[in-house]
C-alpha cells in the first residue's frame, strides 16, 4: 500500500496523473494485500480494479513462486519480483518479461526490518524508466521525513543499482489453475496465512517447561497443547513473534523463512 502511494506521488511529480487503490481487510501490517496503480495523461476517472495490468510487482518472496501472480498480466508485460535468485531462475512462466531483486535482503541490511515496500521501488524506476529515481526519493521523504526517510532512500538506491535488466520469462507449457486465488479483496480470503511469515517460530521442546505462556498469548490461537506441551499449527501462524517474546525460558527460536 505504501509502495503504491509513493509511486503514485512520484509519478505525479513527473507530470502524470495517478491513482493508487489499496485492497485489504482487517489484517496486520506487512500481510499480503493487493494494491492497484494507474498512470495517465488525464485525470483517472474509472474506479474499477486493474484486472489486466501492464506491470505486476510482487513484494513477498514466498508469493513470488506462485504462478497466479501473473494472472491477467498483459502479453509483453513486465513482472518484477522480490526474489533472492536471478530472473533466469524464476518459475512463474508466461508471455512476458521478468526481473528480480532481493528486496528483503536490501531492507534487512538498510532498514534492519523486512519492510520491502520502498526497496523494490528503485528496481521499478530502473526497469520501467519512470518515475524518475529523484521523484521516488522526493515522495519517500515527503511521507517519511528525517532519518527513516533517508534510510528508505538508501534502500531504493541500492535496488536501483542491483536490479538486472528484464529477460523473457519461461514458456508456459499448459495453463496452471491454482485453487486459492491471490486476490486479497476485502476480508482476507487466504485459507492459510502461512505465507504472511517472514520469520517462523520453532519450539525447542527440551527447553520448554510447559508453562503455557505462548499458548495464552498467541493472538491467532495457532498454538495447541498436546500432552501439556505447545505445538504450533503453522497454517494459522502469521509469524508475529509474540510467543518468542513471551516465552520465559527462551525455548522458541525465530528463524527467517527460506525462499
Amino acid at each position, binding site marked *: 500500500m505504501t509502495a503504491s502511494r509513493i509511486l503514485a506521488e512520484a509519478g505525479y511529480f513527473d507530470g502524470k496523473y495517478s491513482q*493508487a487503490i489499496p485492497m485489504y481487510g482487517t489484517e496486520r501490517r506487512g500481510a499480503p494485500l493487493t494494491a492497484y496503480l494507474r498512470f495517465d495523461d488525464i485525470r483517472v476517472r474509472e474506479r*474499477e480494479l486493474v484486472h489486466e495490468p501492464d506491470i505486476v510487482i510482487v513484494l513477498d518472496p514466498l508469493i513470488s513462486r506462485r504462478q497466479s501472480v501473473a494472472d491477467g498480466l498483459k502479453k509483453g508485460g513486465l513482472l518484477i519480483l522480490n526474489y533472492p535468485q536471478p530472473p533466469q531462475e524464476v518459475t512463474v512462466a508466461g508471455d512476458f518479461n521478468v526481473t528480480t531483486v532481493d528486496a528483503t535482503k536490501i531492507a534487512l541490511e538498510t532498514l534492519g526490518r523486512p519492510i520491502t515496500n520502498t526497496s523494490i521501488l528503485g528496481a521499478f524506476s530502473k526497469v520501467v524508466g519512470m518515475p524518475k529515481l529523484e521523484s521516488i526519493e522526493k515522495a519517500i521523504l515527503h511521507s517519511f521525513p528525517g532519518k527513516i526517510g533517508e534510510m528508505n532512500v538508501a534502500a531504493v538506491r541500492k535496488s536501483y543499482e542491483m536490479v538486472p535488466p528484464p529477460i523473457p520469462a519461461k514458456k508456459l507449457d499448459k495453463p496452471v489453475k491454482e485453487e486459492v486465488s491471490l486476490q486479497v479483496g*476485502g476480508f482476507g480470503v487466504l485459507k492459510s496465512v502461512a505465507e504472511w511469515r517472514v520469520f517462523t517460530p520453532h519450539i525447542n521442546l527440551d527447553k520448554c517447561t510447559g508453562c503455557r505462556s505462548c499458548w495464552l498469548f498467541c493472538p491467532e490461537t495457532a498454538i495447541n497443547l498436546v500432552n501439556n506441551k505447545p505445538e504450533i499449527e503453522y497454517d494459522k501462524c502469521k509469524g508475529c513473534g509474540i510467543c518468542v517474546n513471551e516465552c520465559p525460558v527462551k525455548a522458541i527460536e525465530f528463524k527467517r523463512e527460506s525462499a
Partner: protein
Amino acid sequence: MHSEVMVGNKACAIAVKLARVQVASAYPVTPQTTITEYLSEMVANGEMKCEFVNAEGELSTQVIVQAASRVGARTFVCTSGPGQLYMHHPMHDTASRRAPVVMATVHRGNKGMQPDHTDLMSQMWTGWMQWYVENNQEILDTCLMAYRVAEDKRVRLPVAFGYDGYVLSYTAEPVEIPEQEEVDAFLPPYVPMPNILPDKADPASFGRGFGEELDPQVPWRMQHEALVKAKDVIKEVNEEYGKRFGRKYGDGLVEEYRCDGAEAVLVAMGSIAGTARASVDRLWDAGHRVGLVKLKCFIPFPNEDFQRIGGQVGAMGMVDRNVLMGMGGAGFTYLRNALYDFEDRPKILQFHAGLGGKEVKVTELVKAGEKTLRAAKGEKVASMVEWV
C-alpha cells in the same frame, strides 16, 4: 494553490481545516477513521484552532455538534455505516432546529464493511441535504461549498456529503489545495441566527411545536420549503466557487457529461459516476449516443434538471448503489417521481450496482448504456430492472 497526491479522507480533513471549523466531534469507525486521526493530529500540533471532542459514540457526536452549532460555532462531524445509523435520532433534531452542521459520510454499507449508499440513504427523512461525491478533489471542494450553503440565511439546514469508503477514502490521487486566504474570502466566519440564546423577553422556538394556539404542521412545512428552496442557493454557491477556484460541478445539483446530442443517458451517483464517464467515452467511440448525468444533490432532488434533460432523451438508466427494500432504487424512485407530471417523459430503467461493495466495471456500465439506448429507440428490453 498547491497540489498533492492524497487519499480522500485527507482531502476531507484539509477542507475542514481550511473552513476554520471551530468544533468537531467524531467517533472512529472504518472507513472514516483516518479523518478523525488527521483532525486530531492537526488540532494537537496547533495547525488548526478547533475544539475536537472525542465522544463515546456517534449519538453523542451528533448531539455535541448540534449544540455547538446552535450557540454559534462552525461544526463538523463524520461517520460511516453503522455509526451513521447510530446517530439517526439526533440528526432529525439537528435539521429540525436548523443547525447548519456539515457532516462527511464515508460510505460503508449496512451488510458488512464494504461501501454502498445505504448508510446515508437511511437518513433520507431526517431533513438533511444529501450530496454524493465522485473524487477526492470534489471531496475538498464540496466540503467548502457545504458550509456556504448550510449557513446561508435562506437555508439554515445541515448538509451531509457522502463519498464511497475505500474507493475514495483510501485511494490516493492528486488534489489541488487552495490557499487559506482564498478560502477565507469565499467562506466568511459563521454568523449565527439572532435570538439564538434563550431570551425571556423575546421567546423563540427551534424545531419544536409552538404551543396549542398554533398549527403544529407549521415547523414541518417551513423546514420542507426551506429544503426545496435550497436548490437555488446550491446553484449560486457552485457558480461562485467556480469563479474563484476554477472548478465547479455542473450546476451544483447535477453534472452532465457528453449529453449533447445523446439519445439516452445513464444517471449515476458518487464514485460510480467516474467509472461511468469512461463507459460513456467507449459508447460514443462505438457510435452509441449515450451521455451521463451525475446526480450530485440527491436531497433536495433536482426535479427541474431531470425534466429538462428528460425532454431531450428517449430513456434514462438510473444506476443505484442502494435499494429501498420493497420499492426499488432510491434514485430510480425519485427520478420517476420527478418525471411523472411531465408529458413527454422518457423510459426509465433501473440498474442496481455496487451494493455490498461489489466492484463496478467500465464494461458493465457500457452494457447498461447499450440497454438504455435500445429502450430509447423503442426496442423491447427483457427487464426494466437489473442487478448488475
